[in-house]
Structures are given as C-alpha cells and as structure tokens.
C-alpha cells in the first residue's frame, strides 16, 4: 500500500515481529528439536541420535497415550461443536439487541476464571461426596454416594466446559454475518429447515466451524490440568507425560521428543482439518 513511504518506518514495524517470532517461537523450537535428538550416554554426556524417538515408538505406553490423547481431543472437539452450534445459532439468529449481548457475554462466564478454578468447581460437583452425588441421593434417585470424578467422562465434561467459549464465539461471529434473507430465500424456494441448515447455514459457517474446531482441538490436546485433576488412574494425557519427563524424570531429552511429536500431531490434524474443509489457516484463524 504505502510502497513509496519511508523504508525506515517499515523496518521499525518489522523489527518487533521478527524478534518475537525468531526469539520466542522459531529458535526455541529448533532448540527443542536439537535437544530431542540428543541421547544421554552418561552423567553430563550426550550424543546425537534418534533414540528418544525410538523410545517413543518402542514403548506402547507412550504411543498409546499419544493416540488416546489425540482421539479424546478430537472427540472433545466434535462434542463441543455439537453442543455449541445450537447455542451459537440461537444467539446469532434467534435473539436481538440486549438479549443477544447478554447471552453472548454469558458464554464468556467460564473465561472469567482460570481453568484451575473451573476444574476445581467440577471436582466439587462430581466427587463422591460432592454436590451432584448428594443432590441425587436427596432426590432419591440413587441409594448411596456415586463417584463421578476420576474417569474419562469427567475429563470430557471438563474439556468441553473449558473450550466451549472458543467454539461459540467464532460460530456466533460467522453466523451473525449470515444474512437472514439468505435463510428466508431458502424457505421461499421451498427449502426445509434441515436442507437449509445443510445447504446454506453450515457452508456459510464453515470458516467459523473450522476455526472453532482448531482452537478447541488445540486446547484439548495441550490441556494439562483437566485430565490430571478430573481424570482417574487410567486417564493418561500426553501433556502429562511430557510434564513427567521434564519434572519427575529429569529427562528433558525424551520430554523434548514428546513435545516435538505433539507439535507434529497437532500440525498434522490441523492441516488435515483445513484440507478436508477446504479452508485456509489465514482465513479461518486470521479473522479472530
């Protein structure tokens, strides 16, 4: 645009972003990779090699947890989409003015507190001596205390809760931009609610759906607190494994390899999602 304005201004604007991306994103990841390909051969002695990656593939625990995390994250994403879409649609298309703003803000409720507090809230609700168990007993629906914490369902509840906002917001934004007259036109031309949803609303909302899904998937995949605190003894999460390698095993090399694999996985799934939905990262994520 301003091709003939001062170059100095341009470079001054360019400097911060280059510095940021280089120093905090690119170099650290290069560093991470380098560490991930060093093997410990003795105290304070390292060699270059792919042993850490080999360890990952040779230990079923690692790759099973990896796969489990990926699958659960995808599941959480799909669930969030299914639960969030009707809400976003309701806010965008069936409410106006004050109600709309209020409902929209109410979707932000979980964001008012840290993930830790949200998870803590779910722990109070779900535990054996918790609110829901007591309520069910009080209502006479169950005889004794029921344990709802420490299982995969609790993790799902927590993951969906934590990320629903990031699904609803982009969906509301894109659905808002869908002109009501397009839906009316669909009806006028004989469409039913289902066919209009399928042929008009969803294709229009696709960028929002994809960007919401990417964010939710990333949040779930990278989540640490929810699976740790709500999950049970079988509920392993890959970030937990990374944490364990870094913190309790002092094995930064293997931890780095895990980190790198997780990064690869997330990029792969996001890339596949974008390809399948024929969206581009810049278009979906770049629109806030």
């Amino acid at each position, binding site marked *: 645009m301003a091709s003939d304005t001062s170059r100095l201004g341009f470079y001054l604007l360019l400097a911060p972003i280059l510095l940021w991306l280089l120093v*905090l*994103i690119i170099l650290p990841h290069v560093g991470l990779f380098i560490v991930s390909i060093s093997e410990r051969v003795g105290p304070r002695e390292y060699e270059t090699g792919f042993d850490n990656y080999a360890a990952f593939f040779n230990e079923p625990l690692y790759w099973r947890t990896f796969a489990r995390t990926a699958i659960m994250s995808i599941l959480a994403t799909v669930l969030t989409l299914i639960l969030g879409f009707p809400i976003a649609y309701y806010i965008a298309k069936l409410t106006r003015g004050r109600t709309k703003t209020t409902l929209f803000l109410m979707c932000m409720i979980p*964001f008012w507190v840290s993930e830790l507090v949200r998870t803590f809230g779910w722990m109070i609700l779900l535990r054996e001596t*918790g609110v829901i168990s007591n309520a069910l007993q009080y209502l006479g629906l169950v005889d004794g205390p029921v344990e709802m914490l420490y299982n995969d369902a609790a993790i799902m509840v927590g993951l969906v809760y934590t990320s629903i906002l990031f699904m609803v917001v982009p969906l509301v934004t894109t659905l808002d931009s869908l002109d009501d007259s397009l839906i009316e036109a669909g009806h006028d031309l004989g469409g039913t609610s289902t066919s209009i949803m399928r042929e008009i609303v969803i294709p229009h909302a696709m960028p929002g759906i994809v960007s919401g899904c990417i964010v939710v998937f990333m949040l779930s995949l990278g989540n640490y607190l929810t699976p740790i605190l709500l999950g049970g003894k079988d509920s392993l999460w890959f970030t937990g494994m990374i944490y364990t390698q870094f913190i309790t095993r002092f094995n930064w090399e293997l931890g780095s390899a895990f980190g790198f694999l997780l990064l690869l996985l997330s990029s792969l799934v996001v890339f596949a999602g974008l390809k399948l939905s024929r969206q581009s990262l810049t278009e979906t994520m770049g629109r806030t």
Partner: protein
Amino acid sequence: MIPTVPQPAFAKWCYRAYVTVFFVYLALPLTVVCVFAFNNSVFPSMPWKGFTLAWFFGTEAPFIGVFHERAIIRSIGTSAFVAMWVSGLAVAVGTCNAFLFVRHDFRGKALLYMLMLLPLIIPGVILGISILVFSSSLANALEDATGLWFDGLRPGLILVILGQFSFITTFASLVISARLQKFDPSLEEAALNLGATKWGAIRQITLPFLLPAIVASAVVSILMSFENFNTTLMLVGSDSPLTITMFDKLKQGSTPVLNAVSLLLIMISAALGMMSLLFQTKRR
C-alpha cells in the same frame, strides 16, 4: 430457524429448554465454587456446615483466610505484575503488527502472517518447554563462554512474561488488525490535508480510532495471562503467579481458601470485562 420463519411450538420449546440447560451447565461450577467459599468446613464439599467468612478473614489455623495467606497474596501481586508486562508488550507489538500487515505490502507477507498465527496451533506446554530448553541452552553456552551468570535466561518471571507474551501477542495482533482494517485510510489523509504531520495524524486520528481494540486486547491479554497455566508451569521460578500457587495448594488438597480466592478472581474478571464492555459501548 429465524423468527420470521414459522416453527412448531414444540420444537421452539425444546430449543429454549436446551439453551437454558446449557447456561445452567456454564454457571454451575462457578456457582458452587463461590458458594463453598462460605462453607464453615475445612473441606470444600457437602455437607453444608453453616456460613462463615473465615475463608476470607480468618486468622486461626486451620481457618486461615485469603487475606492472611501470604503466599496467595504474594502470588496475586506476581500475577498482576506479569499480566501488566505481558499485556503492555503484547499490545505494543500487536499494534506494530497491525500496522505492518494492514498498511504494508512486502515480499513474504503471507508467510510472515502464517508464522504470526502459528502460536495459536502450538500447545501451551510446548511453547513453555521449548522456551525453557532454548533459554537454558543459551544460558549454559553464555555462562560457559563468559563465566558470568545469566539468571534472566533461567526459569523466573522474565521467562514467564516472555512465554505468555509469545502467544498472547497473536491475539492482540488479530484484534487490533481487525479494527485497523476497518479504518478508512482517507481519515489519515484528511488529517494530513488539514495540516497534521504524519505522526500527528496517527496519534490524533488512527490511535484514538484503534483505542477500543487496544483496550479490548489489553483486557483480554490480562485475563489470559492471569489464567495461563500450561506455559507458565514450565517457566516459573521462585515467584509463582496465582494459578501455579493455587495448583500447588490444590495438589496438597483442596481447601475453601481456594474457593475464596476464586470468588475474588471471578469478581475482578467480571469487573474488568464489564469495564471494557462499557468502554466499548461508550466509544461506539
């Protein structure tokens, strides 16, 4: 579908019921967290043992209130300190990025934009460990070479700030860019035409126009920084921000002090959110 397209009453009714249930689901955990901040029991759970404010003001063990928990008070201060820096840096760099991407064309722009979005698809833990690993190796190398200590490159507040900044900046850039995109460049030209200097035009016209976005992204940055856990966990040194302190406490076992802190946090976030909202409606 939409209000102008007639629908069966039953379907409408079901839809509304679902929406209601959904919002109950959203409100539930926070409500219980708040309510149990007042339970006169050392364990934040049923049964209800009566109302108390001890978890805020108590001084007698085990009823030590938030306001007397030094670690928590200190970590709130730490969090605020981190949040201010992160939001200040993120907004500053975000504003530069907005001008760069909206106002300039250059080779590699699309690539750079993609790179800018990258932090959105890097899990927070990975950002944390990569910065940790990188800065440690850098520090080791520098220390070996110079014999000096480079404590800034070791886990601590500087790394926490940098780590959070590394992905929050993307959000700030997007919010501010979106607003700048809506800016009509002829406004700036009009200012030049009326005798303003180039910087004067940006200061008097463009920046005030961007202000709502700048405020919004500052608030969002503060909230994100306050609640960040994954990245921070890996980079924290001896000064831990609130979430980390709370996590450490929670690992020891949940106590209603955590409920009390959470209640305070909810109130602060709500107030912040309301303020930025009011600010924006006033501006618009």
